[in-house]
């Protein structure tokens, strides 16, 4: 009698708290991932926030210094130099990457025999290791024996000493980054293009719109959500540029390619200034957050949903 009553009581409780019970049922399956995220990602994130307010050099115990690291960064000319380099990289690489990816997507959005092969070829650099790609490009850029300057010489142009030039080193890094990363944006744009209803093109054609007008008045607005998505990710990715500069130039020559992410790495893992590096990481995060928020704020002006 009692057990029957308790079963009825339990069932009633479950019925009244259906959502909670569903959540509790899912919890054991989610727990491994949640714990991993909490300990190794969020935990590390909050730990580094604390570390950014300390002076800590690995084996010397952390010492609380409040905003000392942030103030030091503010007064350090090299910090502003790395920020300038990072913004330079972003200002050049993002528009080029997005534009080239969009144009490639338009080209790949054709029903032609063998188009899949071309899509694969453009996507191949994306799945190749950045380090391996950088090593190959290191030799392509060699001013004495490199392929690029050889091709330029055939056109009567004397190529610059790419990676060894304070003027050309960053453009060289950008070119390599675009070559490596344009494929993934191309695929995203391709998906967006294939989602545009054909009726809109037909209607525009009936109304007498030419191909350029159809592109400008149908394609561009309809693909604008995809463009926005690609832009946000490209900006965030550009602020974090690291592997290319680490392998190609190590931040040189003369700091020309020293980006904030590479500087953070050098400060943390080569110079063991953990507190200072953590502060720089949060400054970088603040810039990325500001850029992303600005993009979200501005999207209402040019992104068309539905």
């Amino acid at each position, binding site marked *: 009698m009692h057990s029957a009553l308790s079963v009825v009581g339990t069932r009633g409780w479950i019925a009244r708290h259906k959502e909670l019970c569903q959540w509790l*049922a899912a919890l054991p399956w989610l727990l491994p991932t949640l714990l991993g995220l909490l300990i190794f990602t969020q935990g590390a994130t909050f730990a580094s926030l604390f570390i950014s307010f300390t002076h800590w050099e690995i084996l010397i115990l952390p*010492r609380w210094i409040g905003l000392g690291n942030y103030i*030091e960064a503010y007064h350090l000319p*090299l910090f502003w130099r790395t920020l300038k380099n990072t913004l330079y990289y972003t200002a050049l690489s993002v528009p080029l990457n997005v534009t080239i990816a969009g144009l490639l997507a338009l080209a790949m959005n054709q029903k032609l025999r063998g188009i899949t092969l071309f899509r694969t070829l453009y996507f191949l650099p994306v799945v190749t290791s950045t380090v391996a790609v950088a090593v190959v490009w290191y030799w392509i850029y060699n001013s*004495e024996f490199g392929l690029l300057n050889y091709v330029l010489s055939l056109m009567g142009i004397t190529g610059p*000493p790419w990676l060894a*030039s304070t003027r050309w080193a960053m453009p060289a890094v950008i070119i390599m980054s675009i070559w490596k990363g344009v494929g993934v944006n191309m695929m995203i744009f391709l998906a967006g293009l294939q989602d545009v209803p054909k009726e809109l093109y037909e209607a525009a054609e009936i109304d007498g719109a030419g191909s350029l007008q159809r592109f400008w008045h149908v394609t561009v607005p309809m693909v604008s959500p995809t463009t926005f998505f690609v832009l946000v990710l490209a900006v965030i990715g550009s602020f974090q540029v690291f592997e290319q500069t680490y392998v190609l130039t190590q931040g040189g*020559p003369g700091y020309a390619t020293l980006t904030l992410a590479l500087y953070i790495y050098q400060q943390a893992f080569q110079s063991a200034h953990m507190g200072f590096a953590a502060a720089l990481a949060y400054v970088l995060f603040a810039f990325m957050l500001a850029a992303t928020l600005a993009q979200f704020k501005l999207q209402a002006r040019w992104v068309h949903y539905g």
Partner: protein
Amino acid sequence: MDTRLTRRTLLKAAVGTMGVTVLTACAPKTSTPAAVQPTTAPTSVAAEPTVVPPTAVPEQVTLQYYSWPGMAYEDSERSELLDPFEQANPNIKVELSLFPYDEYWDKMLTLAAANNLPDYFGMCPLRYGDWVPMKVLMDLDPFVDKELDKTKFYTEIWDQLRAIFPSDPKLYGLPFRAVIEAIAYNKNAFERAGVAVPSNKDWTWDDFGQIAKQLTLKDAAGKVSQYGASITTSHNWFDAALNCYGGEVLDKMLRKCLLDSERNIETIQMFVDWILKDHLSPNPSELAAMPQPFQTGKLAMTQMLSCQVQEWKKIQEFDWDVWWMPRGPAGLFLYGAPDQVSIWAKTKHPDECLKLLKFANSEQRGIVSVEAGSIPTIKAKAQSEDWLKAGNLDNQRIILDEVPYMKGADFGRGWAEWRSMVMNNELTPAFLGEKPVADAVKSAAQAIQAVLDKVYAG
């Protein structure tokens, strides 16, 4: 019986699985049975025979030895040091692990933070100044005082290490070799230019510049086909060259940057003019594009580290040799630095590590593992015919004769940051002609001082 898989069943299975997993992970380790210890029979008043305890078997010990290629080579380190040592000490095994140089220091820092350093490891003067304050290196002065006959060693090489940390000048590593700077010259290049090879031990940097100008040749198109020398900001020669002109980079306590003195600015201007006006050296961009410029015959002369003899002795395209570094108005100063091994202060096997260290510094060790051109700290080894002939050079003796003039490169705390990263990057625009020398030097001095202030603030 209802065998449908319900949500309740699934939930029970999940919780049960997790519970088993947790319990298994938390199960106390079953202790291994203690080894049977030999027991001594209690002595008693009665005249019973005394039981003699069995001889204690030395504990089998494995030492972890970490280093990088260049500091140690697997084959020669094994054949000349580790295998003979293990034969002489059957209870000690040494596991050698080599890592690429850059990766090595990241790894060692991580291991230090985890309190899990290898017992015995390679150390170099560039990093020594940062590692001493970490208090993870064993003080080897007691060992040296007790076990080594100092008269048999180049103790001036040991003193180079002490000078890196003047506030704590103990030996926290024991150098087993030193590398020293010398001038390498291409005999065929001298012949092509019709210039006599260096023969004056007391030649100056001005003489060097004059000779390098004569050695710089251009092809029919006006492009330089052979440079007289290479002028860089490398610590391997640059800092000592400034000393030759009476300048300093840091003060004696290695805390204040003195790079922006008028004397230094004049000296650096001279080197920059050699590149930009006289074109006797490629600029940094051009040099970066030349793989192995001396070995490929692009440079008639170059500053070289003596350990490079090991690799360059394979050059067959031309004849070459070494000569004295040039001197300046303030005298002869040339770069030289010890390579050493250190022992982890918290190693569980200090005695075994010190045995290995003693063996590594004995005459039983061969010279191949020390690398041709690198100077063994053991005098007998360095002055042996084997070493003097190891590089196939007529003038290899000069490398030994230069030892009294060797000077480090102000290795101290933060060296890797202020010297490798900051100073080189700050001066490069001047060497490319993109910034006036005085501005670049002053900017470098400020940036270097900022680094020093930060490292010493801790």
